[in-house]
């Protein structure tokens, strides 16, 4: 429904996060807050994660979601927000990376 003017309730990450919250689940929300170079998802994009590691949405083209989910589960436990940074995969500083050559900053926080 690319052209719909209404929210895609079944796939919208923030709607899903609200639903999880109503179901009593612990939830983390990850948000792309900065991008450099060619980044697959624009600033403001969300990935939402529950304590079991279920997730919806995206902060990259699938390159770093796994790492974000792992961090998000820690954030749910500790309640402390984290700022993550991801860059190209072949630079040794990062374990996972963006093959597109861009860099992104992702803010991960607990809901509530």
């Amino acid at each position, binding site marked *: 429904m690319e052209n719909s003017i209404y929210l895609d309730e079944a796939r919208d990450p*923030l709607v899903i*996060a609200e639903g999880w919250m109503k179901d009593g689940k612990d939830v983390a929300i990850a948000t792309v807050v900065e991008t450099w170079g060619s980044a697959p998802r624009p600033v*403001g994009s969300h990935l939402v994660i529950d304590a079991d590691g279920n997730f919806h949405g995206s902060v990259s083209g699938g390159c770093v979601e796994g790492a974000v989910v792992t961090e998000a589960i820690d954030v749910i436990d500790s309640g402390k927000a984290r700022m993550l940074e991801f860059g190209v995969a072949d630079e040794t500083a990062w374990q996972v990376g963006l093959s597109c050559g861009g860099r992104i900053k992702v803010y991960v926080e607990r809901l509530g």
Partner: protein
Amino acid sequence: MDPYALKTLNAERRARRAAILVTDLGDGRDRIVREGDQVAGDLGAAIAKAFRTGNSGSVEAEGRTFFLNAHLPRPRLVVIGAVHISQALAPMAKIAGYPVEIIDPRTAFATPERFPDIALHAEWPEDVLKRQPFDSYTALAAVTHDPKIDDFALKAALDANCFYVGALGSRKTHAKRVERLLALGATADQIARIHAPIGLDIGAASPAEIAVAVLAQTIHAFRSRGLDVKGAAA
């Protein structure tokens, strides 16, 4: 994120109203700002810009770093009249990122054969608007030439503060229309918001050229919306 902020944000998004989630990246506190809410200083200026452009991003203000996540409803274009101009306008607007809906109670005009892949309502605007009311992220182009069909939609668009209201017809036709809209209770300020004759003045002659002029005027109205308000506040 504050659960209440998330609930509020989703409610605004469902209602097709613009909202910005402002997060202090230092302490994680957040709040929702709605369009028209007064926020002072550098943060307020950044928020106003985010509402105008729809772009999210970080801003330094008051010695802190805030992330502004702008959630703007998708703009849409409603065309009253399944006419020749609309046949050109609908696919062009769709390509430009403005989903189009066409309303025309004349079933001979409003046929899927004439408008493939376009949301089409072969009904009176009164009936369609009951289900899907206009809002400030809707543009309205009234192009039937028929007061019975156009007038109600024009008045409804002015009352809903649609970001663009255009009406086809010569200056003479428009003068008569103004009389009728005033009789319907429209104010002079509202009347002044109607673009008539419709479309940017590019000397458009054919239906397709008029469609280009209408689309360009719609885009201009969308991208410059809120600028007056900002000027008044400064």
